[in-house]
């Protein structure tokens, strides 16, 4: 059963950014210190006291980003969202323009960072804002 990352309760976000650091750390053989490799970004509504927005891939079943990728670095995956083959990415930025919710980020090295729904960040969200759950469960929820 495929799983995706979802926002369970945005109003609980305290703006700590632990999800961003977790995302950058997610690969055991290539962990990064910082957030350049993070595919998730929490921003405030003019100060976190007014609330937060978490900008992250929402796992579209028909993802526009993959449709504009000239090298097939981004390909749709079962359950929604995309897989990212970094090696194939030329850094053209088409996907960044195509993503309606601006959830793909340009990295310092010219490649992109985006959520591939691995769920690693959810383990580090201290306040239950993020949830990694079965796609089926989501559908039943609707």
């Amino acid at each position, binding site marked *: 059963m495929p799983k995706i990352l979802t926002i369970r309760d945005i109003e609980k976000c305290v703006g700590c950014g632990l999800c961003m650091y977790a995302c950058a750390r997610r690969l055991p053989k290539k962990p990064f210190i*910082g957030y350049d490799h993070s595919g998730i970004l929490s921003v*405030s509504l003019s100060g976190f006291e007014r609330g937060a927005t978490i900008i992250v891939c929402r796992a579209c079943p028909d993802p526009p980003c993959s449709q504009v990728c000239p090298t097939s670095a981004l390909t749709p995956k079962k359950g929604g969202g995309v897989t990212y083959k970094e090696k194939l990415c030329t850094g053209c930025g088409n996907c960044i323009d195509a993503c309606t919710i601006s959830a793909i980020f340009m990295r310092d090295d010219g490649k992109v960072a985006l959520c591939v729904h691995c769920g690693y960040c959810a383990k580090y969200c201290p306040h239950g804002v993020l949830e990694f759950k079965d796609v089926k469960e989501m559908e039943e929820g609707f």
Partner: protein
Amino acid sequence: MDEHNFERKNILHINLSDYTYFVEERDDLAEYIGGVGVGVKLLQENLKPDADPLGEENVIIFSTGPFTPAYPFASKTVALFKSPLTGNLGESHAGGRSATSITSAGYDAIVIKGKSEKPVYLVIENNRVHFKDARVLWGIEDSLITGRIIAEKEGGRGIRSIMRIGGAGERLVRYACVMTETYRHFGRLGLGAVFGSKLLKAIVVIGRKDRKPVKLKEYREVYDEIFKKAVESDVMQKYHLIGTPVNILPLNELQSLPTRNLESGYFERAEEISGEAFAETLLARRIACNHCPTACIHISALKWPFEEEAYFYKTIMISYDYELIYALGSMLGIGNKEEILKLIYKVEMYGLDAMSTGVVLAWATEALRRGIVGERDTLVPLQFGDFRSYFKAIEYIYLQPNEFYKNIAKGAEYASDIYGGKDFALTFGKNEMAGYHTGEGAYIGYLIGLRHSHLDNAGYSVDQKMKDEIEPENLVDKLVKEEIWRQVLSSLVVCFFARGLYTPELISKAFVPLGIELKEDELINVGERIYREKIKVKKSMGFKIKHLRIPEKIFKVRNFRGELNRDYIERALKYFEKKYM
């Protein structure tokens, strides 16, 4: 920035006098770790000890540590400068996103020199500094508005830090602060006035640089260990629940909560302004510094009716902490939560240090009562408990409409030089006191503490834990030992609130994935080295034990251990001078 070399320091130098900058790579600073250790070396190199704190020659250092942003709680930046309030070493720490933004922009420290011809704000990015025209922003007294304007105009949403001053910094109030991310401050000792003197309104720092750990597996393991301890154990509990104001009631119980300019250590309305009371009715949100799971920033929602229209309200979000409730509450005899929040709001708006503001106003109130100043000076009938007068007086500290307010804008020490009333001017080393009348330990701590804030020393906690009397010499040794340790913490730089978690063992372990070997006992050596360097800087700026003044008033107020003893404090100071100076 070398992505693997955590010992190399990238120092960004900015000169406001000719709008230039350069980056310097330093391999010789590793023995000072980072943060305050590296900062104090940079200060020595770049600042003449006799510099005028508000002159072009003063220097501002922002310094971060090697644990930022590798580990949780390493969220703080250390600012070092010459303080316009005390004329000596100024040190102030702030969180928010300041530290993570500076390191992500690729710098370990920033050195700002000179003075701009016209108001500017800086946008600091990786390898680039923009000097931006701030003439239009100059004169905006509300630091919250300044923050919003810059936030709208500049990029880096979610990853930037916006440090700025309010009107108090522009008008050189000697205890003006620099605000970052709205609720965190380089609070004490007047960094805001130093910004103001340089015509520097704000600094935006944006960056996306990251680094690779040297040992991959170990990095994730140590990270997980810290994270688990933070969220599963109770080491952070005090800050997790009610927050720092949880101290109001216990300190009041010990007759140690300074009340009405320390007329007493007991405030009869403490229940009403306790952390519990705030949490119950006004606590509305909790927010975090970047990379901190605890989220200790307690935000209240104050429903504030429009003055002239019924059924219209402003809802103002105001952060509160123990020190603010003490300084703008009990110290001014104010026992109403909403009124305290309104005073905090006013102080935040102009960008003042809350502690100094409260203590200065408490002195002014007593000065008026004793008749050494008149109402023509104070302009409002200052009286303990009178919210309206204080609300107006805070505005006057910013505006400085007459000589009296010009004088109190320079601090209680300065004002009492002019008007008298030294006995009840509650300053230590010219800095207004923190909220702990716990005993000799706290006051000795204020006097010998290298940062002149309560946070560098354990005075108030030693006082409370002391079962039997200890000799003043032992007490000084204890305070210095703790302060030496805190030099290590503030070089990493981890939040002091996480000091229970960052034990020497854990710190040593956390260095390994960064390719740095520092054994537990070496850490203490580093702390001692930094401590000695700071003493040197202080002495070069004229710090002398014989200049220290102990306000008579503290000996007249009993607390849980009875009356304080002047001889005890003097003996301690003598010993400190001999052994550590």
